[in-house]
């Protein structure tokens, strides 16, 4: 691809995705997107690429009938979870909905275990009983993996309540989409989180479509950063395709929550390239729209360009990274294909302790 075209795309990106913060009705300017150093760009590239390749493989395996049921891919949204994770410290928790593979990988959960859960095998992180939408890791502080749209918002607020109760200095990142943002319990949770100054960051991943319904057709207020205004929760709109912008906003939000000032809302303006789930015909948007996002705003391509241009990595060096990522994903797929299904006796385990 021509560098000029990419530069044009980049300019378009920053125009389309403004970074603004508001508290109540008063908006304040936020610092410009910070630059990453080489190690940050490399780390972000690695993490995002792993999610991308993992999800591509998941799509293939779904097509082969190895993965059943619902499978919601994260392709296109990688910068959100990777940038946010860079802004956390060990002990901080993550909870999300059912488009959760990327979050688990970003939390450091084993790719084999995630993939084997997708295929419903005994080596899956939930022993094959949860599937794509339901995985958890106490060790990595990942609390799921929830299938009821919006339920994770109350749950994440409860995790933050526990942080506050224990006074442990941890922050819970609570992810949900533009669709979940219209659920009632989200606002019940906002109210209590601000009332009790709970250390929670609400990360609204606005990928523009709740299943097939465009934001503008479902939301009276399409600026999700303002959804906390009536509770006095500050919010920002963030270019969720630029991992640096995500990271910078994440740092502000996490610092706010950790310092005892209460919750913070980040609207991540992002885009999913694939359908809502595997069975989505995507009739609600044009092919052009998808192509334009992929070509002009791709989060991984942005970092790749910096690695080549600013940090002077060679194509060969990037190929080495690529190869390592593919190896992890292929190993995971191999494991998930051949690992046995759960023993039938597992049907009646883990119902009660």
């Amino acid at each position: 691809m021509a560098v000029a075209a990419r530069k044009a795309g980049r300019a378009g990106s920053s125009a389309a995705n403004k970074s603004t913060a508001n508290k109540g009705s008063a908006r304040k300017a936020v610092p410009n997107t910070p630059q990453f150093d080489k190690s940050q760009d490399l780390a972000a590239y690695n993490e995002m690429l792993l999610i991308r390749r993992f999800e591509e493989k998941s799509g293939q395996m779904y097509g082969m009938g190895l993965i059943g049921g619902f499978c919601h891919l994260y392709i296109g949204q990688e910068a959100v979870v990777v940038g946010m994770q860079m802004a956390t410290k060990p002990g901080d928790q993550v909870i999300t909905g059912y488009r959760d593979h990327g979050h688990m990988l970003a939390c450091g959960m084993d790719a084999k275990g995630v993939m084997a859960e997708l295929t419903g095998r005994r080596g899956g992180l939930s022993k094959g009983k949860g599937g794509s939408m339901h995985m958890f890791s106490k060790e990595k502080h990942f609390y799921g993996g929830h299938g009821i749209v919006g339920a994770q918002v109350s749950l994440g607020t409860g995790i933050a309540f526990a942080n506050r109760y224990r006074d442990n200095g941890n922050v819970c990142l609570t992810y949900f989409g533009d669709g979940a943002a219209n659920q009632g319990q989200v606002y019940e949770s906002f109210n209590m989180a601000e009332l009790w100054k709970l250390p929670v960051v609400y990360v609204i991943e606005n990928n523009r479509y709740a299943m097939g319904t465009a934001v503008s057709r479902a939301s009276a207020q399409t600026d999700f950063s303002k959804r906390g205004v009536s509770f006095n929760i500050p919010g920002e709109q963030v270019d969720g395709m630029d991992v640096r912008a995500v990271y910078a906003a994440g740092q502000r939000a996490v610092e706010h929550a950790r310092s005892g000032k209460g919750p913070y809302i980040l609207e991540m303006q992002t885009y999913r390239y694939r359908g809502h789930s595997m069975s989505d015909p995507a009739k609600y948007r044009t092919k052009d729209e998808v192509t334009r996002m992929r070509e002009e705003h791709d989060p991984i391509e942005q970092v790749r360009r910096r690695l080549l241009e600013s940090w002077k990595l060679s194509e060969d060096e990037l190929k080495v990274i690529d190869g390592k990522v593919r190896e992890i994903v292929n190993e995971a797929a191999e494991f998930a294909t051949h690992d046995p299904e759960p023993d039938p006796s597992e049907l009646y385990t883990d119902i009660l302790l």
Partner: protein
Amino acid sequence: MAIDILMPALSPTMEQGKLAKWLKKEGDKVKPGDVLAEIETDKATMEVEAVDEGVLAKILVGDGTDNVAVNTPIAVLADVGEDLASAVASAKMPDLVALPAAAPVASEAAPATVPAAPAAPQVAYDAGTEVPAGTEMVNMTVREALRDAMAEEMRRDGNVFVMGEEVAEYQGAYKVTQGLLQEFGAKRVVDTPITEHGFAGIGVGAAFTGLRPIVEFMTFNFAMQAIDQIINSAAKTLYMSGGQLGAPIVFRGPNGAAARVAAQHSQDFAAWYSAIPGLKVVAPYSAADAKGLLKSAIRDPNPIIFLENEILYGQSFPVPVLDDFTLPIGKARIHRQGKDVTIVSFGMGMTYAIKAAQELEKEGIDVEIVDLRTIRPMDTDTIVASVMKTGRCITVEEGYPQSGVGAEIVARIMEKAFDYLDAPVLRVTGKDVPMPYAANLEKLALPNVGEVVQAVKAVTYR
């Protein structure tokens, strides 16, 4: 023309209360809206206001009188200028001021064919093997037993906290959390906004991290708003996580019909929650069971639905005086030994079963009563053993008939003790209608002692 001022009711279930203090004295002129006195029950305090203009001619019930029955005349109000002595003479004097501390007898009235229910029974706690021989017993209300259970567990484990509407500063909508705020502070006794769905989810999230929340629903009717979090998040996560992440949480509050609060506030959810794998469902009748089971529920690592009953809150029962009295969840109790027929019931249903057993005893029918105490996991063994002994069984509950707890019991008996049955098992349940408001219709909608007696006679062919 003198008017009697009557003891008012503070709530639909109030039967009696204390006349705490008169704020007007005899001879004072009063006008509508003036506060005459303060009355209180164990769960609330209220001011009695004058409705008419006049002179307070005579105070009939003095300051500090306990157990004043609702509708007892407490004072006489004369017209201004009326002769006070004749006004007082014309007024009714209360003939029963101090009542014994009897249990309320709400909703026991039966159709005309049924003999009047006897006075509230004294429930002898069958210590059995659950309490060491010789243990001292003390009478306390179900309300106090629940409060003590929470307080003891909160002293024992700093991870236990209680949250819900009005649990702290108001001291509990039904005064079950009375005094907890004072002992444990606002961090552990958390008043929530009116937001059941949200705070149920917050409780479950906190439980995921290992805290042990007690989530109080003002009534279980309002838990309908939260049922997604209870079932989809609390009950299922352990399974969905392959055993990694459980929710040690207690959802508790009054369940079932109160009195005269109509359809949206009167429903028994025992059958609903008992249908869900991943939950335990507890529904105690006596104060001792309420205490021992709530303590066990708080320690249990699983999500527990703890169904209380507003009408039982004020009833007193003997409770063992022990430092740490817990009872096993999942064990029924033989409340009364008998040889002719088994009645299986739980919670409020026990009040009908016990009264019916006393009636039937007079007619020579010896009833065994199984108090389930836990609906899920259900103690099938105890039910089946009793049915094998008696050969006959009925179930009693306030819930709906279809897919009710009784229906489940009937199925289990059919599967495990069919050959021991001498008659079909019958169910006495709430009627298959939303709860009506009108007093007569409400009585008809609830089970009653007469129906239990009739069902027992039907299965014993009497």
